[in-house]
């Protein structure tokens, strides 16, 4: 074997990237909390590790999640990752099978064709190795071709927008793209001179470029290949390609049960570095598709948080509707990270909420809680209570005389300390009602109760509760042929995973049609999010109008939803299709089945009395 200095750039780069990765992995793992480290130790020798390996192969090499979203995009990622991986594996195998011993320097298998022109010592494996090496090289270069094409014509790939990259990413990207053309060149030149390679490089060398001064190109082409590799490796830790080594760690940590907490942690750093800035989140975002705001999506937010601090605009321009969360192929907990980042910039003081002491809720068995949005949609309250009356439920409308805010709006805006005041107070008041279950018409409240209240009683969204009553036969509806499309509220579907009960409930009275594939966990956003304060009412309406357009078609009589905020926002978009809460549809069907007049129906409601606290004098 003849040594040659061209291997130096590659060797330096590889050494650097390996050292960097080892150091970073170590720092991240060491800085995990004691509890996290404990659960990792406990689970290290369990099936979770095997699952981690499987997911690494599935997502790291084959990119199944991207495939599921977009076949071409999936192929692009797969061909690059899997193709390159196979080149490395096969290169190592053939270098080790070569009859000169198993130990060799790291650059040796990478530049094997430079060092060995005669592969006949591989005997019967020669043919298959040379074939496979050419095959995977072709696979990789096809991926690069698509990637190159995508940069300039992302729409053809089914991506309306792709990430705008910063300098270091462009350097790394350029190096990456150059690696394989240079490799093909180096191997083709070698094939032209020494008749190596197989159907691809041999063909190129012997048939296409044989007229060139190959012996003069020989060393420069291997140098170019090595330099491209070296510069990619040196740029990698500082660029988006750090996701390659980091994603593996992320997958394992997640498998062991590590999650985002309520403030940034070492795990957050792993997540930040695991973002490949693929930009899939951009197209999932209503702000981009409906309002043309395409520079605040997670790809940018996560990037800026990784390098320093995202700007206020970047931090705040998000509805926290969680669509990107479902779209992210890496599974980064984007929404929680953004909330945590917001919580580092709190404006309100907990003392702003000292006025809360005047409140009390009455005693209850089944506590009905309308919340602030419920009070702004009295027809939802009325409809739900009429249904509860009809089912013979002994409920108490605990916040009839006004409620303490559930705390969700503050939570979403990062005001966790102020929110805690509301949560603690409200939680105690609800506890003191002695209720054995809580029903609310508001998914925002329900979500907050479930996630941050840690209550011992079951919490039902009214769509769940009414479905249960229907299922028990306590509510009977008139079946009509009203054609209804259902809009999943984000806090209910993505937030709480409640997607089936509202559908079953609706089906017991109307014809439910799914006109869009953007439903359930992928549901569209109404635009009325409480988590964003820097969009105008008109921008919200624009989002709502676009959502209605996708949900309804010309046979849709009615859009049903199950959230007072969604109802109000979608209705404000002023479209031809009326929007109603699920309770309003159901109460109509109930009255129809009883041949009773809805407008004459009165809610029973013996207690509590609505009190006039202070009359105007």
């Amino acid at each position: 074997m003849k040594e040659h200095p061209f291997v130096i750039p590659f060797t330096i780069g590889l050494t650097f990237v390996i050292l960097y990765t080892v150091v970073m992995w170590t720092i991240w793992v060491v800085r995990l909390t004691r509890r996290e480290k404990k659960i990792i130790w406990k689970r290290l020798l369990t099936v979770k590790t095997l699952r981690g390996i499987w997911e690494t192969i599935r997502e790291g090499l084959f990119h199944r999640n991207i495939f599921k979203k977009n076949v071409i995009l999936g192929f692009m990622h797969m061909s690059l990752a899997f193709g390159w991986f196979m080149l490395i594996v096969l290169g190592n195998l053939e270098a080790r099978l070569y009859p000169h011993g198993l130990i060799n320097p790291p650059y040796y298998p990478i530049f094997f064709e430079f060092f060995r022109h005669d592969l006949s010592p591989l005997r019967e494996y020669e043919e298959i190795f040379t074939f496979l090496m050419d095959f995977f090289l072709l696979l990789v270069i096809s991926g690069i071709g698509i990637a190159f094409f995508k940069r300039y014509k992302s729409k053809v790939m089914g991506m309306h927008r792709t990430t705008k990259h910063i300098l270091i990413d462009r350097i790394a990207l350029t190096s990456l793209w150059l690696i394989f053309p240079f490799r093909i060149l180096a191997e083709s030149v070698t094939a032209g001179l020494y008749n190596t390679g197989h159907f691809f490089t041999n063909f190129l060398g012997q048939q296409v470029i044989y007229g060139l001064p190959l012996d003069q190109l020989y060393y420069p082409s291997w140098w170019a290949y090595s330099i491209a590799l070296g510069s990619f490796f040196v740029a990698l830790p500082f660029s988006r390609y750090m996701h390659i080594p980091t994603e593996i760690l992320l997958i394992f940590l997640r498998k062991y049960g590590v999650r985002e907490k309520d403030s940034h942690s070492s795990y957050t750093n792993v997540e930040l570095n695991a973002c490949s800035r693929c930009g899939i989140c951009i197209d999932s975002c209503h702000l981009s598709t409906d309002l043309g705001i395409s520079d605040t999506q997670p790809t940018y937010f996560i990037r800026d948080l990784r390098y320093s601090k995202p700007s206020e605009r970047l931090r705040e321009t998000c509805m926290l509707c969680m669509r990107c969360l479902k779209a992210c192929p890496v599974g980064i907990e984007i929404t929680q990270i953004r909330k945590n980042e917001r919580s580092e910039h709190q404006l309100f003081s907990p003392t702003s909420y000292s006025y809360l002491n005047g409140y009390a809720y009455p005693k209850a068995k089944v506590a009905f809680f309308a919340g602030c949005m419920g009070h702004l949609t009295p027809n939802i309250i009325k409809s739900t209570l009429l249904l509860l009356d009809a089912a013979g439920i002994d409920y108490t409308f605990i916040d009839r005389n006004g409620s303490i805010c559930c705390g969700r709006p503050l939570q979403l805006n990062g005001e966790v300390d102020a929110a805690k005041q509301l949560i603690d107070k409200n939680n105690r008041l609800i506890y003191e009602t002695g209720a054995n279950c809580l029903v609310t018409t508001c998914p925002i409240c329900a979500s907050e109760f479930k996630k941050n209240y840690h209550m011992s009683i079951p919490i039902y969204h009214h769509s769940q509760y009414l479905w249960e009553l229907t299922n028990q036969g306590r509510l009977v509806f008139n079946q009509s042929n009203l054609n209804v499309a259902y809009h999943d509220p984000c806090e209910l579907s993505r937030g709480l995973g409640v997607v089936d009960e509202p559908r079953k409930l609706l089906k017991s009275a109307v014809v439910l049609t799914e006109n869009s594939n953007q439903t359930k966990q992928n549901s569209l956003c109404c635009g009325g999010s409480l988590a964003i304060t820097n969009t105008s009412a008109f921008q919200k309406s624009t989002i709502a109008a676009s959502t209605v357009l996708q949900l309804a078609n010309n046979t849709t009589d009615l859009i049903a939803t199950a959230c007072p905020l969604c109802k109000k926002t979608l209705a404000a978009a002023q479209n031809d299709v009326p929007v109603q809460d699920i309770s309003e549809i159901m109460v109509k069907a109930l009255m129809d089945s009883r041949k009773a007049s809805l407008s004459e129906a009165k809610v029973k409601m013996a207690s509590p009395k609505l009190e006039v606290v202070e009359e105007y004098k």
Partner: protein
Amino acid sequence: MLKKVAVIGGGVAGLEAARQLAALGYQTTVYEKNDHAGGHTSEWDRLFPNRRPAVEVVDTLKSQLNGNPAIVLSTPITELLPNGDKFTLKTSNKSFEADAVLIATGFELFQAERKEEYGYGIYDNVITSAELEKMFTEHGTPLMRNGEKPKRVAFVHCVGSRDEKVNHLYCSKVCCVTAVKQAIEAKEAIPEAEIFCLYMDLRMFGPGYEELYKEAQQKGINFIRGRLSEASELDGGRLLIKTEDTLASRPLKMSVDMLVLMVGMTPAEGTSKLIYNLGLKPNADGFIGVSDYHLKPSETGIRGVYTAGACSGPNNITDSINSARSAVVEIHRYLSVKEP
């Protein structure tokens, strides 16, 4: 041959324009979708600021026409198409031609159900200003659903106006003074009743309006500067309303027997479809956009098509009459003078 002018809409603007056009010698036809002319004014009891019966204005306008031009009732024009130098107006089954068109389709009242938090359509004694006018016409007094006279009445200003949440940023102009007028009338009808006006600010821009406001204050009507946040129904049908007294800087909860919602003006349904085939788009508020807000308030941007009245934005009767006359001058210039 006489040139034909079509006036779409037989409200005050349409009627006034038709009279003037006929006087100038044009063969004019008014197409009215309802079975009677006079538009919203014909639904009203008395008019601000002098509380003159609305029927007087409508009858005067109608009698001045005296059969020429003709008013074609129950004829909703749904399509307006350019047709060479002329225009074609279509209903679902008929079609008319005209050399020039005046769009005077007016406005519609804001649908109070859209402010669900105010409880219209949910609670018995939440009514709109238009419904109160009907009560004045029929009974001379506000009446609750149970037939009794209310003891406490609150008027809510700006319902569907100046409200981003319903996408209406504009002011409907006439509701402030209407609320003041109706408050006085309610007080006169039920002297022992307490009357409240919940306002953002009072836009008393016309002659006699400020005087009317002063009269209301002198008659003991309470003006609370604060927007209604929500209403709920107390047991027994009274209403609990929540607002903020922004002058006293304190939240306010009070009970009333009746809530009157001062519904604003919204673009008439169908107007945007009507102008669509001409290539015209509504303005940001949804009304017909005029060529130049200051200098060409009657022109639409299409020669031969003009606009008058509240279809280009909220107007009171006086302004509608003025805009009708302004449009007539433009139509006359278009049809009789060669160069613009």
